């Protein structure tokens, strides 16, 4: 599973990345995490509300920072 966190460095984007890493550690799910800050790439996914989460090239969430529990549900389901 490849996970991309889309965002350009504001506090929310950082929180999403932190939450993702936390959940990956606690669930043991094996995934590569990449932070995408280039606007061209972000818009390439059709996203205009950051932060956004992309799992295996599908945008699963945009515009907010989910709680670790919600993230876990999202990632397990992906």
């Amino acid at each position: 599973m490849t996970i991309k966190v889309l965002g350009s460095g504001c506090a929310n984007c950082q929180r999403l990345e932190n939450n993702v890493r936390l959940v990956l550690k606690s669930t043991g799910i094996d995934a590569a995490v990449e932070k995408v800050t280039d606007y061209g790439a972000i818009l390439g996914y059709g996203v205009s509300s950051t932060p956004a989460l992309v799992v295996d090239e599908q945008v699963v969430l945009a515009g907010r920072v989910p709680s670790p529990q919600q993230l876990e549900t999202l990632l397990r389901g992906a």
Partner: protein
Amino acid sequence: MKVKTAARAPALGGFPAVRLTLAAAIWVALYAVKGPVFDWLVYDALGLARSTRLADAVHFFLFDTFKIVLLLAAIIFAVTVLRSFFSVERTRALLGGRREGAGNALAAGLGVVTPFCSCSAVPAFIGFVAAGVPLGVTLSFLIASPMVNEIALVMLFGLFGWGIAAIYLASGLILAVVAGMVLGRLHLEKYVEPFVFETRLGGKAIDPSRQLTWGERVQMGVEELRTILAKIWPYLLVGIGLGAAIHGWVPQSFFLRYAGPGNPLAVPVAVLLGIPLYSNAAGILPLVEALHAKGLAMGTTLAFMMAVTALSLPEMIILRRVLKPRLIGVYITVVGAGILATGFLFNALL
């Protein structure tokens, strides 16, 4: 066909009526007892004599902090839940290809209700342009968003009543519409960074406002509440502290003498002072309340508040990524002029 929420995990499913009712009851109880509790605390427990400056200032500080935190909690929660029905993606779909006039009005209205974190300003702006939203309409959205701050709106209503709150809303909207139309006419596209027009909006847009259950909306409300309070408490304390100092030590009608409604310089000075300052709306309101209580005219007070909250250096820095300095200068000038006009209007009307 709508997916039934029962299919989701029960904890996040239907409307959390019990929890919300309980929370509301606690809130009302706290709000009702705040007067007596702080009167007791300051004048009896701490033993400060009434009507001394120190006692007045301390009382104002404690009482106002408590009151404002309570109000903020309610407002932020309610507004976040309401806003969860809107999103930049949905707004973009609504505005795409619209012409001026109606487009500007719709954009201004949406600018007020669409949740919009300033770090999203760049992707949102680019997204709008890519979706065929005219520059003037996009600017109406960008101007309305900070001009009508929902926290300020509700607090103005709480402090000064319906009339003031309504005029604040109306003037912000009208300014956003007119400014957007004027700027649209000036054909300032050449002052937008070129890459904005070259970026292609790919993929299938996901709309964050759809597919949310009530449980999730409430959860967002609570999280937003926690996040915002954690972020703004320094501004809040400084604003309330200044308000308390003014409340306790500045003579009554001080401002009436030096910056009353008859003095035409008051509004421009207020705006000029406000532009370089930045505060969250919640932090500035206690200061605004205290200033007005000491005789500062309503129009001047509002102009100051709007200048502080609507024009901020952090936002300008972010906008610099998509707008060239000249367009930013135009933006600041137009919004500043609008605030000036609002200040004079209020002073004349009230």
